[in-house]
C-alpha cells in the first residue's frame, strides 16, 4: 500500500510538470492549430538560463523569476520574428519552422553549455515527507504547479486581457470585429507558454538533471497529456498531464517487464489509443464543420 501511495504521489509530482507542458502546447495549438515541437527545447533553454544566473551568483528565486520573465519576452520575440511571417504558409512549412527552432535551440544550448549532465538545485530540499511516500521537492513541484494553474485560471477567467486572449485564440475574426488586436494576443500566448515551460523545466531539472536533451521525454509526455485531455481544452490538457504522470509510474511499477525502459513506448501507445478511440480526447469538444 505504501508503495502504491508513493507511486501515485510521485506520479502526481511529475504529472504536474507534464500538465504544465501540455498546457503550454494547448495554448499555442488553440491559437495557430499546430503543435509547437520546440516547446520542450524552449523550456530547456530557460532552465539553462536559470542555471547560468545561479552560476553568476544570483540566488535561486531571483534566477527563477529572471528566467521566467526573459522566457516570456523570448516567446513573444519568437512569435513576432518567426511565426508571424509564416502565418499564411502551409502546414508543412510551419512544421519545418518548428523543427528548425527545435534543432537551433538544442544545438545552441549544447554550444554554450556543452552536453554534459549537470545537477540542478532545488529550494525545497529532498527530505522525505509523510513517512517517506513523497519527497519535499516533489511536494514543492506540486505546490508551484497548483499556484501557477490558479494564477492562469484567474488571469483567463477574470481579466480583460485574458478574455481578449481567449477570444483571439478561439474566434479570431469575431475578435477583430470587437477591436481585439489578434496578432498581439497570439504573441502574448507564446510568451505565456514559454514562461510556463520555463517554470516546468526549472521544477523538473533537479529530478532528471540538466542537459540539452532533458525535455525530449517530458514534452512527449506533455503531448500525451494534451491529446488525452483534448487539444481543444486547456483544463483537459492539465488533467491529462496529471493522469499520464500517475499512469506512467503505476505501469512502470506494477506491469512486469515495463520498468523504466518501456515507459516511453507506453506513452506513445496511449497517444495512438486515444487518437483511434477518442480523437477529441477525454474533455475536448467534438469538432463540427459545416460543408
Amino acid at each position: 500500500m505504501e508503495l502504491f501511495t508513493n507511486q501515485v504521489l510521485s506520479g502526481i509530482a511529475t504529472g504536474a510538470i507534464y500538465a504544465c507542458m501540455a498546457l503550454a502546447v494547448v495554448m499555442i495549438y488553440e491559437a495557430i492549430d499546430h503543435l509547437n515541437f520546440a516547446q520542450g527545447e524552449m523550456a530547456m533553454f530557460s532552465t539553462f538560463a536559470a542555471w547560468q544566473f545561479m552560476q553568476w551568483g544570483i540566488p535561486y528565486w531571483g534566477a527563477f523569476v529572471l528566467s521566467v520573465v526573459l522566457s516570456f519576452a523570448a516567446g513573444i520575440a519568437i512569435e513576432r520574428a518567426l511565426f508571424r511571417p509564416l502565418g499564411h504558409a502551409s502546414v508543412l512549412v510551419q512544421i519545418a519552422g518548428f523543427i528548425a527552432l527545435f534543432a537551433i535551440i538544442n544545438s545552441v544550448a549544447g554550444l554554450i553549455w556543452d552536453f554534459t549532465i549537470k545537477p540542478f538545485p532545488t529550494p525545497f530540499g529532498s527530505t522525505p515527507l509523510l513517512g517517506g511516500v513523497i519527497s519535499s521537492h516533489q511536494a514543492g513541484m506540486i505546490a508551484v504547479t497548483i499556484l501557477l494553474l490558479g494564477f492562469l485560471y484567474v488571469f483567463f477567467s477574470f481579466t480583460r486581457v485574458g478574455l481578449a486572449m481567449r477570444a483571439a485564440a478561439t474566434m479570431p475574426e469575431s475578435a477583430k470585429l470587437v477591436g481585439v488586436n489578434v496578432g498581439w494576443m497570439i504573441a502574448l500566448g507564446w510568451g505565456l507558454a514559454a514562461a510556463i515551460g520555463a517554470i516546468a523545466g526549472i521544477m523538473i531539472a533537479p529530478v532528471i538533471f540538466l542537459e540539452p536533451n532533458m525535455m525530449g521525454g517530458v514534452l512527449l509526455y506533455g503531448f500525451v497529456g494534451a491529446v488525452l485531455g483534448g487539444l481543444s481544452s486547456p483544463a483537459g490538457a492539465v488533467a491529462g498531464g496529471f493522469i499520464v504522470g500517475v499512469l506512467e509510474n503505476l505501469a512502470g511499477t506494477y506491469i512486469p517487464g515495463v520498468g523504466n525502459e518501456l515507459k516511453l513506448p507506453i506513452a506513445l501507445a496511449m497517444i495512438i489509443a486515444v487518437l483511434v478511440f477518442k480523437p477529441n480526447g477525454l474533455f475536448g469538444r467534438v469538432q463540427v464543420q459545416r460543408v
Partner: protein
Amino acid sequence: MTASLNVRDLRAYYGQVQALHGLNFSLEEGSVTTLLGANGAGKTTTLRAICNMVRTTGTIEFDGKPITHMSTEHIVKLGIAQVPQGRGTFTRMNVEENLQLGAITRGDKAGIASDIERMYALFPVLKQRRTQQAGLLSGGEQQMLAVARALMLRPRVLLLDEPSFGLAPLVVRDVFKVLEQINRDDKVTILVVEQNAQLALELADQAYVIETGEIVQSGPAAEIASNEDIRKSYLGY
C-alpha cells in the same frame, strides 16, 4: 446633412475574383441606410470591405478621414461596429463575457457595467441567459446577443449583415424595433444589409440595390419601396 461614412469607387477581390466593381455610396449621419440585393450580389463583401477584412481598392472615409488601409481593430476602435454574417458569437464564452468583449476597447468600467444592464433591459432574454454558454443559445437569442455585443462598443456607425437571417418573424420584429430605437435615441448611423427587402425598407431612410457587385438603383427608401419595377426586378416581392 453630413456624410458619416463615404465610399468611393470601392472594389474588392477574393484572390483573382473581383467581387465589387466600384461602389459609390454614403451613409448620412444619424440615418438608416439599407443595402439590398440577391445572394452573391456583394452585400456581405461590402460590409467586410468597410472593416478591411477583404482586399480592396478605392477610398472609404469616416468623418472625412480615410480609413481604407487601417487594420480591422483600428477601424472598430474609431466607432464602427459590425454584426457579421453568422453573428460572430463567441460560442465558448457565456453571454456576459460576450458583452464584455464588445466593450473590450473601452476603458470606462462603470460605463461598461451600466451598458451591460442597458442591454439586458433592451433584450430581457439575455439577462436570463447571462451565465449560459453563448453557443447554446437559440438563433434568435444569438442574433440579439450579436446586436447587443456590437452596441457595447457605443458605436457611431453600426453595420448589420442580415439580422433577420434564420429568425422567426416575431423575433425579427423585436430585433428591428431595437434597431429603430437605438437609431432614434442614440443617433447611431446604421447600415443594414438584408434579403428581406420589405422589412429593411420600412426601417431605412435611404436604400441602395446592388447586383453582381454594382449599385443598380438608389434613392429614398420610400421611393424604392413604391417603385413596382424595382420591386419586381430586384427585390422579389
